[in-house]
């Protein structure tokens, strides 16, 4: 790792002085400048589908946040933009409840805490739709035997954004996480999943298209704290003219996590000489008896596939669009894909000669 590890500094170090590898490819000053005192967290986000949900008490919120909030040394922006429990939207999905929650960050700094009780079902989206720079956190605890389906969506957002998403999974919990990052702007998205008990499962799919001049930075950490759980991650990213993408995917298997199955596949398409991809998969294993795989690839479109399509009469620009869309479609879930697919088509059509 570049630089020295930073553990809860007494005096916060200015972000621009950080040389940590995780920030190596993002222009920190842009994020630092965008961190401004913003309006009340309650106005930063619109929520729907929450009428039937209870609010957490202040004490409950504090306790839960203490568990979920990571070491800010690992997430330096968090120290600056995170909110106190009292300023967050704090919700509970009750036992056996079936909830559909839509969260839209519209401005400033948003903060939301969701506690999903055991044996509940939650279908949620987190979308950014902000005209100016915005930051936000979403913390979720998925209770024992509960299921969370979450789609995060940043499409066509010209304004800079930074997001921290932290999810803890209890015994037998399951998560399907779909992350969409499509278009322009500068966006950094940090995701941390923790398996705190066994028999839990997470399926993570990410589709990113960095169009003209976009700067995307995805940082994903999966921590298997307890054993006998399964994580399966696949991220596909394509970078167009002057688009830049950074992906760090880290799997950390703790000493008390035998029987873990963890896979991470990251594939990247460079679509132009001016595009840039930085990708690093990391795997740290501190126990025996695990099955893991991790890998990143960076390449161009498959010339054989391109030739097959052309030989069937599909002109090269059309064939390229079909192949790029197909590559991204592989990591878009069937549900929630319409907006993303339409945006992808639009950017690819604009890019065609």
């Amino acid at each position, binding site marked *: 790792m570049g630089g020295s590890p930073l553990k809860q500094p007494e005096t916060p170090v200015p972000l621009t002085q950080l040389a940590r590898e995780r920030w190596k490819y993002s222009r920190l000053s842009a994020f630092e400048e965008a961190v401004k005192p913003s309006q009340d967290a309650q106005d930063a986000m619109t929520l729907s589908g929450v009428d039937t949900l209870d609010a957490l008490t202040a004490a409950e919120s504090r306790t839960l946040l203490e568990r979920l909030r990571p070491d800010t040394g690992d997430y330096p922006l968090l120290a600056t933009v995170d909110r106190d429990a009292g300023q967050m939207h704090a919700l509970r999905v009750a036992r056996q409840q079936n909830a559909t929650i839509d969260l839209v960050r519209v401005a400033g700094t948003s903060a939301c805490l969701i506690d999903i009780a055991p044996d509940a079902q939650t279908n949620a989206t987190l979308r950014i739709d902000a005209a100016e720079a915005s930051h936000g956190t979403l913390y979720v605890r998925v209770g024992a035997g509960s299921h969370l389906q979450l789609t995060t969506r940043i499409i066509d957002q010209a304004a800079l954004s930074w997001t921290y998403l932290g999810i803890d999974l209890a015994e037998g919990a399951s998560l399907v996480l779909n992350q969409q990052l499509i278009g322009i702007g500068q966006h950094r998205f940090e995701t941390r999943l923790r398996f705190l008990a066994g028999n839990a499962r997470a399926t993570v799919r990410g589709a990113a298209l960095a169009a003209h001049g976009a700067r995307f930075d995805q940082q994903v950490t999966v921590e298997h704290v307890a054993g006998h759980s399964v994580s399966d991650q696949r991220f596909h990213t394509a970078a167009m003219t002057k688009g830049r993408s950074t992906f760090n995917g880290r799997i950390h298997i703790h000493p008390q996590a035998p029987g873990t199955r963890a896979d991470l596949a990251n594939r990247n398409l460079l679509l132009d000489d001016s595009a840039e991809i930085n990708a690093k998969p990391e795997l740290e294993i501190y126990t025996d008896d695990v099955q893991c795989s991790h890998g990143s690839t960076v390449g161009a479109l*498959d*010339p*054989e*596939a391109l*030739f*097959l*399509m*052309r*030989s*069937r*009469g*599909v*002109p*090269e620009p*059309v064939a390229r669009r*079909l*192949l790029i*869309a*197909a*590559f*991204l*479609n*592989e990591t878009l879930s069937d549900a929630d894909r319409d907006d993303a697919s339409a945006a992808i088509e639009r950017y690819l059509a604009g890019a065609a000669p």
Partner: protein
Amino acid sequence: MTALLAIDNLSARVGEKPILKGLSLAIQPGEVHAIMGPNGSGKSTLANLLAGKPGYEVTSGTVQFNGTDLLSQEAEERSHAGLFLAFQYPVEIPGVSNMEFLKAALDQHAAARGEDAPATGAFIKRVRELANELDLNAEFLKRGVNEGFSGGEKKRNEILQLRLLEPTLAVLDETDSGLDIDALRVVGEGVNAFRSPTNGVLMITHYQRLLDHIRPNFVHVLSDGQIIRTGGPELALELEEKGYGWLAA
């Protein structure tokens, strides 16, 4: 009568390596020609070059297709003009469904003719019919192009594309490789259904067994980039018995 395909003194190289060395061949409408020859003789180069695959440099000679200069056309233009290559190793394209792929191809052919895209209902019906004839499970339409297909299914999918696009010249590059006896029969029937007095077939093969199913008018032996012998179907039988050594000597 204008030849369907007229190759005249064609030489080509890949990188610095000459592969074809003055090859000439003419196919008239209605004819089936087989090209046989040892590994490395230039068979697949000829097929890929005719279809317009990048990476081949023509150093001399001409190719006329229906009286027009083939070599100046892009791969997609050659397809629109009626040339079809059935691949030796059809590539898998995950994420693009067969249906989407076939529709894109047909739509582009219609557009090149200045016509509207075919109606989706009629298109689906036609694809199902062909899939049925070729013993391909209709489920394959939803899957990615050739994704997870067996070798035989990939080749049958090539023939389905051939039948759907209705070209005037089909170039079959070792379509028999990797086929079991039943699949070979199905593929042979597919190609025979395509044959007509106005179109032609150029099939490249190592083995005589494909010629039991698709009866050629002419058999050529390609060796070191040139056609060194031309005969009727009996030549293939002779090759099967004696190998290529007696010709090259």
